[in-house]
């Protein structure tokens, strides 16, 4: 049996003096799309960054595809990619340069960049500095980077925020395609009711704990 994509056991995490996560136990099978909901400051980003190996749990354990993120963070990182709220691109580099950097960092072929920029609708702005981009365009660039990596686990932090309708449809398409390829997706979003999304589960993060939201359609 293949190990679950995400396995969290008793995960807590302090941020400053606050205990943001107070014991999260979660198991997500590979190939699922899970939407994570919760008010502002509920700890959605904390949970995503923790899965992305950027934050270490204060206690508890986290495994991605059976890989312990504390013991083998580099191996875990090889399986995941994240779209952060701000897009995560360098402002004084152009869109193309940002993607080329991603190619070098991930060992991907540089030839893919042109097609990806087209895919996310940034072909015309490819050589403009990201500084001049709107936040929606930055989001699209972040999405292109994620497409380039095409990791086994997609961590999406508010992917729909700041995007126009066209952009939101793009996210829907990309998500559906990744799902069709058997990828696991965890998406922090307020828009779990998007028509075409149909997540396998909707989770609610409240008071540092996680539970299945009643609205969630369970597989």
């Amino acid at each position, binding site marked *: 049996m293949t190990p679950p994509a995400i396995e969290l056991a*008793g995960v807590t995490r302090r941020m400053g003096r606050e205990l943001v996560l107070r014991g999260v136990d979660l198991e997500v099978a590979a190939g699922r799309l899970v939407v994570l909901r919760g008010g502002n400051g509920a700890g959605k980003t904390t949970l995503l960054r923790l899965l992305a190996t950027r934050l270490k749990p204060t206690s508890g354990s986290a495994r991605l595809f059976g890989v312990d993120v504390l013991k083998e963070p580099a191996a875990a990182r090889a399986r995941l990619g994240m779209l952060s709220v701000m897009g995560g691109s360098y402002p004084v580099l152009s869109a193309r340069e940002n993607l080329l950097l991603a190619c070098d960092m991930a060992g991907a072929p540089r030839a893919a960049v042109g097609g990806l920029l087209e895919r996310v609708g940034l072909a015309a702005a490819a050589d403009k500095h990201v500084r001049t981009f709107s936040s929606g365009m930055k989001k699209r660039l972040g999405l292109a980077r994620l497409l380039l990596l095409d990791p086994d686990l997609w961590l999406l932090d508010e992917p729909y925020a700041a995007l126009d309708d066209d952009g939101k449809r793009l996210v829907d398409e990309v998500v559906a395609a990744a799902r069709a390829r058997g990828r696991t997706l965890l998406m922090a979003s307020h828009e779990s009711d998007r028509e075409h999304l149909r997540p396998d589960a909707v989770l609610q993060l409240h008071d540092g704990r996680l539970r299945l939201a009643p609205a969630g359609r369970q*597989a």
Partner: protein
Amino acid sequence: MIDSSRDGKRPLWLNLLGLASLALFGVGAYLALFASPPDVNQGDLIRIMYAHVPVAWIGFVAVGVSAVWGMLYLWRSRPIDDVRAVANADAALLFSLLTVVGGMTYSKPTLNTFWTWDAKLTLTALMVALLVGYYIVRGLIEEPQRRARVSAVIMIVVLASLPFNYLAAEWFRTLHPAKSVNLDGSGVTMAPEMLRVLLINVVAAGLVFVYFVSERVRVGKLALSSARERSGFEAAAPATGEVVRVR
């Protein structure tokens, strides 16, 4: 030991250690101030040396010990190792401050200036600056694990800096790098009875150091367990028992 540290009482061995270090400190002070002969060149001023030299040595030892606990923390992430590292860092700061003060006291009457850019004194002053940086960073990080990791790293850097700072300070004074490495002191020969008094004072200072650090670790442990109870960050873990499963 474990039981007594739980209820917050000071264990017997620690009290005995405190008494022993106090007693030996008294003996050392008596020998230094009254029993030992005045120096041929420096007269009674040499008596400062009996306090100054042991204190300086302990300061460096404390940095080394703190760095070792820091490395252990980085290796096995046990909060108690951070407590031990900080206890030794406290001692290092205290003893190196005393060393700088002692050195200035010593150089005013002998060399008629408070600051001489003497190699070892300069080295100690730099160490004080490095340790102050350590505490500033500790004060800025609230998350305990990251604080412990980062401060362990800084202490390792401080330890690595000591030989370089020593060489730099030594060569700075002599203005020449070639004829310098003279780790045994200034080459002054010491009468055997003075050396004996010095060694007794070194042991006394060592006991004070061990007592200070042990007491500091004990207090740190108490703070650690009460912080744990307050935030419940270890108790919170197994509480739910409900795993959210998405199959």
